[in-house]
């Protein structure tokens, strides 16, 4: 079967890959581009572990074909820190111990960042609904929510 040649932008860098038409963006990111930050949890759009943004819009990369990324801008967890300086969300996740196994963490960070860019001052209810598509089976969510709310406050104060 002939492969599709895709040129896309990932975290600001132009990348190219060849993919099978059935291959998902998640698989392309992990196996073709070598960015393994986005995780496969369910593979059916339920768990959010593979969350990335596609032209600024939060999506599950397991429900996007690699071929659909042609000409788009993708951002992943790998684009979150600036060099060795962690993003405030990443730092607060460590401070609040808002992770255990870590599989859900990249997706939650990408999703939380997408909300804070849209709404820097969300209520806890808005945050919980926004993150309803990111499942965590370890922490019980409270630490995650506290970390995100704390990061949001710090980011507001810094801006």
């Amino acid at each position, binding site marked *: 079967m002939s492969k599709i040649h895709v040129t896309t932008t990932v975290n600001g860098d132009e990348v190219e890959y060849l993919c099978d*038409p059935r291959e998902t963006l998640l698989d392309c990111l992990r196996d073709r581009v070598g960015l393994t930050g986005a995780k496969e949890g369910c593979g059916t759009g339920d768990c959010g572990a593979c969350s990335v943004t596609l032209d600024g819009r939060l999506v599950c990369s397991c429900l996007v074909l690699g071929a*659909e990324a042609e000409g788009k801008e993708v951002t992943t967890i790998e684009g979150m820190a600036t060099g060795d300086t962690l993003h405030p969300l990443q730092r607060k996740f460590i401070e609040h111990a808002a992770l255990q196994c870590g599989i859900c963490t990249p997706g939650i960070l990408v999703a939380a960042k997408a909300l804070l860019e849209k709404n820097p001052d969300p209520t806890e209810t808005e945050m919980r609904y926004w993150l309803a598509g990111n499942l965590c089976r370890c922490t019980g969510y409270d630490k995650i929510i506290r970390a995100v709310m704390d990061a949001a406050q710090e980011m507001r104060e810094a801006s």
Partner: protein
Amino acid sequence: MRYHTPSSFEDATAIAARATGTTRYLAGGTDVLVQLRSDVVTPDDLIDVKHIPGVKDITQTEDGGWRIGVAVAGAEMTEHGGLGRDWPGIVEGMDLIGSTQVQGRATLTGNLCNGSPAADGVPALIAANATVTVSGPDGVRDVAVEAIPAGPGKTILARGEMVTAVNVPARGQNGGDAYLRFIPRTEMDIAVVGCAVNLTVEGDQITSARVVLGAVAPTIRAVEDAARAIIGTTLDDAALDALDAAASAACAPIDDKRGTIEFRTEVAGVLAKRAAKIAYARARGEAK
């Protein structure tokens, strides 16, 4: 699987009409790719419609109606503003589907063409008397949204045909709509019962109404008896009781762990009353 990116509806339908195997159109992919990944449906030809000009647009027509492109995502409908001011029920129905991530991709047309009796995006469209434009080998026609579903997972669309736009009529004066669903949790679930009500008023009297139930029959259905129960009334207690009874009487639901027949039948009446009250308040300008 062959992946196509046609740049016109004519090309898209021509590919589908020529195809001999399984064909799927791809817009948001939140159903198609799940089915692909779980080996439920493996298309031989996958036709991505997102390269066709205009499919991501929500436009107001000259008569005040709305045209929603087939690749407009739920989040784009919610963020639009004008569409939701005219038809809050349509927007809130779509907005109930899935997570933030799913809202970034899922489309109203996909929700309709997936053919689920529990589709949250569809009842308010039917209540609004919306139509879809269908293109195919035999030309272009407008079809009532109500006529599209043929049963669970099935539509009346023939090989080579595709929906090319959703057409919502002008809201007009003194009208309001609403959609409610019951799920056993607060988010991320499929309707056990859904109900949309669209009505117009003169003063405090209802002059026209449409009541549509989802997830209580093999297809989403408009319930004329339920509409008749409230037309000509001020939505007083007697009218609400009659609406409740008519909505429940129209149910022929499945019985499963998420809702028994008795439960779904009773909840249909409850949701009809609540949705009617919201639509009535919106029509009278008392609620957004």
